[in-house]
């Protein structure tokens, strides 16, 4: 089990996080670029020293204790923490085969062969890293990290720049390996879909703070603050009229494009009336911006988009409600277990 409770100094803002990842569990830290997610991974790996706090792996402290004259933190090479980054970091003077077995004192051909087969690296073993495509290099780097048998697996936006099918394939493989080996794993991502595909637990990170953690789909349905809602894809916040189930408070409803139904369905949620402002094609669907008073919401439609200016009735299904302070209104918060 990995326990993290650290604060790291950064020029713009301090970065702090507190969480626990069980063996075999996948945590995804999701948030915008520059939020401090990578900083947390680097502190766990020992590449940067935290200002305070601790990182423990199976009850063994990895970081030093700045407040006490205890033993120093474990150096990077003794932490058994693997970190896979967007830059595969293959050693250019070694061929693929040598890169794969870099961390292995004893050769276990069975496992090497299994991963080589799974990742389709068989024809590349003698190739130099400079001759690999981006996807191939990333697969080699992933195999090398897995073959090193770390006790913790950290993935820092490792699939950026790769095509979607390869991302899906690698995510599934890593999840299976994490389960099979029973190690804690953390993925850092700035794409929600990628984070959700990986995570048993999702953490939303912004400006150096872990804003919310939870089961991925639950977190997306019940963001605890307007900022979290914005980050997980809510594209409009419509003020509710007093008496519209608000108990007199000035609340606004968070509207997620995937949780809007065309037409008035009061039994499902809040009904709004608005005018189409703009629309654009999105795959087989249409994404339509609708002005609701001073607010603007976005919804997805299967049919052709209505003309701008068309009046629409929309139902936001069970939307989260937020108070003037940006925090979720109690009635919309999930029940604590």
């Amino acid at each position, binding site marked *: 089990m990995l326990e993290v409770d650290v604060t790291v100094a950064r020029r713009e803002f301090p970065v702090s996080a507190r969480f626990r990842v069980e063996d075999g569990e996948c945590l995804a830290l999701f948030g915008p670029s520059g939020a401090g997610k990578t900083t947390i991974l680097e502190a766990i790996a020992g590449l940067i020293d935290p200002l305070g706090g601790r990182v423990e792996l199976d009850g063994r402290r990895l970081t030093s204790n700045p407040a006490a004259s205890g033993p120093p933190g474990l150096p990077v*090479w003794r932490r*058994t923490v*693997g970190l896979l980054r967007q830059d595969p970091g293959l050693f250019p003077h070694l061929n693929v085969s040598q890169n794969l077995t870099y961390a292995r004192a004893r050769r276990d051909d069975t496992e090497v062969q299994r991963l080589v087969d799974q990742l389709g690296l068989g024809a590349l073993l003698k190739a130099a890293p400079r001759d690999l495509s981006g996807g191939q290099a990333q697969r080699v780097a992933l195999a090398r990290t897995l073959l*090193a048998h770390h006790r913790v697996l950290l993935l820092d936006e490792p699939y950026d720049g790769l095509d979607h099918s390869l991302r899906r394939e690698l995510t599934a493989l890593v999840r299976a390996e994490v389960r099979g080996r029973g190690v804690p794993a953390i993925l850092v991502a700035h794409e929600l879909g990628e984070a959700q595909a990986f995570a048993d637990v999702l953490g939303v990170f912004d400006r150096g703070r872990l804003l919310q953690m939870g089961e991925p789909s639950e977190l997306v349905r019940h963001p605890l603050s307007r900022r979290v809602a914005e980050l997980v894809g809510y594209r409009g916040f419509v003020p509710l009229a007093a008496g519209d189930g608000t108990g007199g408070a000035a609340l606004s409803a968070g509207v997620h494009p995937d949780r809007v139904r065309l037409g008035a369905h009061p039994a499902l949620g809040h009904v709004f009336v608005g005018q189409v402002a703009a629309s654009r094609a999105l795959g087989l669907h249409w994404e339509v911006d609708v002005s609701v008073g001073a607010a603007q919401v976005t919804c997805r439609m299967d049919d052709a988009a209505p003309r701008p200016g068309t009046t629409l009735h929309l139902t936001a299904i069970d939307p989260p409600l937020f108070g003037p302070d940006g925090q979720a209104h109690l009635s919309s918060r999930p029940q604590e277990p």
Partner: protein
Amino acid sequence: MGGSVLVWVVLLGPLWTLLTHLSFGTLGRALGAPGALQPLATSLEAGVVTLALLVILGSPLGYLLARDQVPLGRLIEGGLLVMLQMPPLVIGLLLVFMVGPLTPLGHLLSGVGASATNTFLALVVAEVYEAAPYYVLGAQAAVAAVEPRLEQQAALLGDPPWRALRRITLPLAAPGLAMALATAWARAVGAFGAVIIIAYHPYGLPLQVWTTLDQSGLPAALPFALVLLVVALPLPLLAYGWSRRARG
């Protein structure tokens, strides 16, 4: 294209001139004279000792400068650049005031029966001062060209710093280090300005060229000039070829 070839031919003009003014007969007579090859032996010995000192003392400094791990690194770098640009004759003059027999260091050396003027030690000291900036700055550039992220990656894969140095940094920096070493070799073996001031004896190849020129004239000095080139140049050329191949 044609212009570039012309520039190359003109730049190598002195070399063509040397080759056209030498015959095998002159070369054989000059090098066959008694004691004619002693300066060659002296230059080789002093060059090898100089290179060993540079590798042992200069490589760590080059590494630390490249990785910003030395306090006042920019100041040290500036000092090396000053030494690089200082005229060798001036270096020789100042070395007399630094390690000459009347200086505290000179006294210290004479206490252990050594001297840094007109001795083999003096020759090595002069060569070290002329060649060291070339080697240290070259080594710094060679290490700086190796991405620190690769060393970090090796650490993440379980390598302590010394093992990452052996498995990652040195192999990747090797072509650059070889170039730095070869340049330092050429500078050391060809050192003249500082050498003529503090290490006239035992004289090596550059001083042999100079004294032969002084005493017997230009044609007599040419064979020894060729020997000096033959000793000084192959290593840089080999290193260049290797680094080109290693970098693809």
